[in-house]
Each structure stands twice: as structure tokens, then as C-alpha cells.
């Protein structure tokens, strides 16, 4: 079987096995020429249609299929490696400070991935997602403090509440475009913050206004979502991040993902193709607000103290948008890459410049954003993805070359 594409490369229609045994030196030549085949600028999607002169279309297809399968397994190996790395990290890194920084990286990657369902796929720019973090955090915290409900349940309650609020916000605002939508979402989030800051009691619920709520760390344990060490938080947010990435991946390949992308890019054309654009956006908004609220509960349990200025602030909303824009809106890897790049900048600038230049990280964000928008308008995920594909292509070719050679050797040995 392995002899077949090789025999094809000599462009003869005679039986492949004979051919390969006769001209075995060419066996190493063929893959070499394959490696030097120029990688198309458009990345992986174009390579299959590229014609190389020594192959007929059918042979080209077999080649491409085999290569795609190899690349697929390379991708899987990479994923498993990254997953092992992520799960093993706390075994190596013991410092709570470092773990804290990494947890916040995952936290923001998670938030941005949730945001991405609306801000990336649906092509609008929501700048008020902090409202959902706030709803999530306050729901679970109030339920826990006043009614003793496990934060895990409170998390779901907050999620549902967020869905409701998200749809209420989405209904009027999705009719707006561009900056108007962004401004409207800011208005909702800020309005919510001011309300929370000025309400001490909402009926029987103690909100505590600007003083916020503190969760006394009395009953430590999984049921109460409270731990003394950082590791459990690390694994919880890691699993949440993996889940949201998997969901994003599934959506991007589903009908909903196609509809969101189409509606975001050309709403009129999308409508003419049978897409109820506003409804698709509302569905995305519902999912996004639900997932964002879960992160709110996580943050509340992680810091055990929430107050409106820290959790419903515009800073958080903007940081999510920064990470998404720099990492790459509408891509799956973008939010993770953006968080990996920006969160350390924020943390270290706070550690080293916090006293002298507070807010210095925002200046750095701005500079990075300008540079990225000029040189990589689709975010840093694009050059990195391209680089990955080039490397994977090379690796696939190398692996196939080895396989072909060993196939030839086997045949020679048997004759």
C-alpha cells in the first residue's frame, strides 16, 4: 500500500510494486521534493488544491488524504502533550503566587472564550460582559451566605439569571451595529454596577452596596467550593476552560457557527440565505452569558470577596475585549493565546510598577493592540496557526518519507 504513491511519482502506469523495487534510489528523492513544495500563503486549506506537475489529480488526492491523516495525528499528539502539560503543571510549580497568576490566565482565557461566542462569531463587540460575571458572582454568593446553598448550585442559578438578562439586553441591542452596540452594552453594565453599588438590601437579599460581600472560609471542601490550596482552583478552572474550548469548537463546526459567522459578516446576505440573524445572535448571547456567569461564581469562590468595583467594572469588560482582539476574534485558540500574552504583562507590571505607575499595564495593552491591529489584524493566532501548519506539514512529509523508505526496504528484503 505504501508503495503506491511512490510508484505514482515516477508517473508510470505500470504495476507499482515492480516499479518501486527497480528504482529505489528515487524513493528518497520524491519525499524531498515534496518537502520543498512551497506552502501556499493561505495556509492549510489551500494545499489540497495545489497541483504539482508530476501527479495526476487522482494521485494528488491520495497523497493529500494520506498527508491529512498524518497531520491529524500530529495535531492529536500536540493536543495530548499540551493537556498533559496543563494537568501536570501544579506538580512542578509549587509557588502559590505563580499558580495564582496561571489560574487568572485560565480564568481570562475562559471568560474571553465565552465572550467569543458573541464577540467573535456573531461579529458584534459587546463591552459589558462584566455584568454577567457580576450576576454569577452575586447569585451564588448571596445564596450561599444567606441560604446555605452550595455555590455549585448557585453557579447554575446565576447562569440561568444571566441568560435571562443576556436575552433582555440582546433583544433591543442586536438591532444596532458597530460602535452603537458596544456603547449600549457598556451602558447596561455600568448601570448594573451603579445599581449594585447603591443597593444594600434587595427585598430579603443582602447585597451590601459598595462594601461588597465576604465569604468566610469556614467550611472548606468541594461541596462548598472552597479550598485552602490553589491546586483545586487550578484544576476546576482548567476543566472549565477545556469544556468551553470544546464547546466553541463544536459550535464553530455546527450550523449555528456557520449562521453566526454569516450573520456577523454580511447580515443581509445571511438573511436571504434563510438565516434569522437576530435569533442566532440571541442564542449565542444566551450561551455566552450563561458561561460568563459560571466564571463569576468561580471568581467569587476563588477570591472569597466580591464588590461591585472589582467584579462589574469596565476594566474587566475591556480586558476581555483586549485579549480577544489581540489573540484573534472568532478563533478558538485566540482567547487562550491572548490571555497567555496579556495576563502576565498585567500581573508583572502590577508587581513591578504598581506603586510608581498604576495602570501601566493598560498602556502596554494599548501599544500591543495598536501593533497587532496594524500588522496582524486578525490577531496573533493567525501567524501562529500558519506556523503550526507549516511545521505540521513538514513533519507529516518527513514521517511519510520514512514510512515509504521502510516500505521499500521491506520489499527489497523480501525479494
Amino acid at each position: 500500500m505504501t508503495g503506491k504513491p511512490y510508484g505514482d511519482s515516477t508517473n508510470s502506469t505500470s504495476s507499482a510494486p515492480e516499479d518501486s523495487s527497480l528504482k529505489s534510489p528515487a524513493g528518497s528523492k520524491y519525499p524531498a521534493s515534496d518537502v520543498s513544495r512551497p506552502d501556499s500563503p493561505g495556509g492549510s486549506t489551500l494545499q489540497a488544491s495545489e497541483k504539482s506537475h508530476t501527479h495526476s489529480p487522482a494521485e494528488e488526492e491520495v497523497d493529500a488524504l494520506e498527508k491529512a491523516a498524518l497531520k491529524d495525528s500530529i495535531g492529536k499528539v500536540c493536543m495530548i502533550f499540551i493537556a498533559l502539560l496543563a494537568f501536570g503543571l501544579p506538580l512542578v510549580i509549587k509557588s502559590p503566587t505563580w499558580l495564582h497568576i496561571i489560574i487568572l490566565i485560565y480564568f481570562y482565557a475562559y471568560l474571553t472564550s465565552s465572550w467569543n461566542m458573541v464577540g467573535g462569531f456573531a461579529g458584534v463587540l459587546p463591552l459589558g460582559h462584566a455584568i454577567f460575571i457580576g450576576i454569577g458572582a452575586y447569585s451564588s454568593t448571596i445564596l450561599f451566605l444567606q441560604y446555605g446553598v452550595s455555590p455549585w448550585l448557585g453557579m447554575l442559578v446565576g447562569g440561568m439569571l444571566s441568560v435571562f438578562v443576556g436575552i433582555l439586553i440582546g433583544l433591543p441591542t442586536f438591532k444596532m451595529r458597530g460602535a452603537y452596540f458596544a456603547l449600549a452594552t457598556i451602558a447596561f453594565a455600568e448601570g448594573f454596577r451603579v445599581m449594585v453599588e447603591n443597593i444594600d438590601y434587595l427585598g430579603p437579599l443582602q447585597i451590601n452596596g459598595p462594601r461588597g460581600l465576604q465569604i468566610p472560609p469556614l467550611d472548606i471542601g468541594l461541596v462548598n467550593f472552597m479550598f485552602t490550596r490553589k491546586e483545586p482552583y487550578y484544576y476546576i478552572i482548567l476543566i472549565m476552560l477545556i469544556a468551553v474550548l470544546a464547546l466553541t469548537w463544536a459550535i464553530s463546526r455546527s450550523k449555528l457557527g456557520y449562521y453566526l459567522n454569516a450573520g456577523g459578516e454580511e447580515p443581509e446576505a445571511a438573511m436571504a440565505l434563510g438565516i434569522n440573524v437576530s435569533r442566532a445572535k440571541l442564542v449565542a448571547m444566551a450561551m455566552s452569558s450563561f458561561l460568563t456567569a459560571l466564571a463569576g461564581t468561580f471568581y467569587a469562590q476563588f477570591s472569597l470577596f466580591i464588590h461591585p468595583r472589582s467584579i462589574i467594572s469596565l476594566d474587566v469588560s475591556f480586558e476581555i475585549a483586549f485579549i480577544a482582539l489581540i489573540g484573534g476574534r472568532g478563533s478558538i485558540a485566540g482567547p487562550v493565546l491572548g490571555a497567555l500574552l496579556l495576563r502576565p504583562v498585567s500581573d508583572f507590571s502590577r508587581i513591578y510598577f504598581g506603586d510608581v505607575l498604576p495602570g501601566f499595564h493598560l498602556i502596554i495593552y494599548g501599544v500591543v493592540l495598536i501593533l497587532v491591529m496594524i500588522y496582524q489584524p486578525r490577531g496573533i493566532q493567525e501567524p501562529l496557526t500558519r506556523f503550526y501548519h507549516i511545521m505540521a506539514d513538514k513533519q507529516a512529509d518527513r514521517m511519510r518519507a520514512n514510512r515509504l523508505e521502510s516500505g521499500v526496504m521491506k520489499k527489497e528484503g523480501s525479494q
Partner: protein
Amino acid sequence: MKILEVNNLTMRFGGLTAVDSLNLSIEKGEILGLIGPNGAGKSTAFNCIAGVYTPTEGEVRFDGQITKREKPWDLCKRGLARTFQIVKPFASKSVLYNVMVGAFATTDKRAEAEEKAINVLKTLNFEDKKDFRSGDLTIADRKRLEIARALATEPSLLLLDEVMAGLRPGEVDEMVEIIRFLRDQGVTIFVIEHIMRAIMALSDRIVVIHFGKKIAQGTPREVAADENVIKAYLGGEYGVS
């Protein structure tokens, strides 16, 4: 059997009457041309039929059912597809992705949508460009993509809004072939076009509108000889001399 009936259709924007009591109908399997000078109201009429605008007066019947209050996506699901005069590809996505968006109108499964999209691309001789970024296509290919996308929704009536504008003569001929081929496949076609050579060759019947009003209709030959049509296109003086 009439697939589309337009009765007394009027569309006003403030004081401007863009379409004025327009009547027309299309038989199943027909190619109907709609022509008229710039600003005659052709695209507005299309938008009313496709559900983008709700007409001020009058009614549109598609497949025997009045379309009032139906949105473009509802009509698309019922078998009415359209292209846009100003092409609107999902520019950052591949050709295949674009066509799959259309194919999702009739299926929820990704694999099925992909298969349908590939079939459409094959019938339009477009398959070799399926992995191209649609924003990088030439204008001729973008127009073809508009048709491919619309076709992927499996329409019974296809509204083509100036799909030949901006094409070279050779490309126009190719497009005429494509449209004829679609008709042979059983798709009824309603086409707006400026290129006279193409629309004369293509249409079974032609409706001419001017300032929103229908001024003539008939076979291409009849319309071309019509005095009102000549006046509308060339100005009143030519009719006299």
C-alpha cells in the same frame, strides 16, 4: 401554474414612490427579465418580493401564498432565493464555507450540507476554487458564488439581481449558459439585468419598468420594438426623430 404573482405592488419611501402599482406574474419554469433605466425601481421591487421591505400597498403571492409579514429567511425556507446586485460574500471564509451556509437552509447536518455544497459547486464548474478565500475572488467568480450560495438553498424561484454587471463578454456568455442550465434543472428564474444582449437572449418574457411603473411587457422582440421602451432608454427626442 404561476409561481409568483405580484398584484398592484407599491412601495413608497416618504414622498418617493419607488415602485408604483406593479403587476406581473411568472409561470413555473419560465425565465422572466425585468429591465428599466437606472433608478427605475427594479431592485426595490426585488426587495419587496424577497421580503426585505414590506410593500406599502399591494400583495405578493409566492407559490399561491401571500407573503405579507414573511421575512427573507422564511421565504428562503419556502424556496425563494436571491442574489445581490452588490455582491456580499462572507469574505473571510472559503468558497465552500459560503455555499455551505446556503446548504444549511435545508439540513442541520454538517456532512450533508458539505455534500450539497460540493454538488452545487460541481454543477457550476466552480469546484476547483472551493478552498479559495471568497474575498480574493474575481468579480465574475463572486457573482458565480452569489448564485452558488442561493442555489444551495434549493430554491424553486431564483431572483438574480444584475449577476452579469461588470463581467467581460466571454464571462457573460458563460453566465447565460449557467442560467439556462438552471432553468433546465427546473428552477424558475426572475432576472434583473442591464446587459441587453444577455437579457434578450435569455428571457422568455420581459417586463420593462420606468419610474416605478410598468411601461411594457412581452417577448424580447416585442419589447425591443416598443416605442415607450425606446423613449425611456434613449430619451423622448429619439422617439420623434
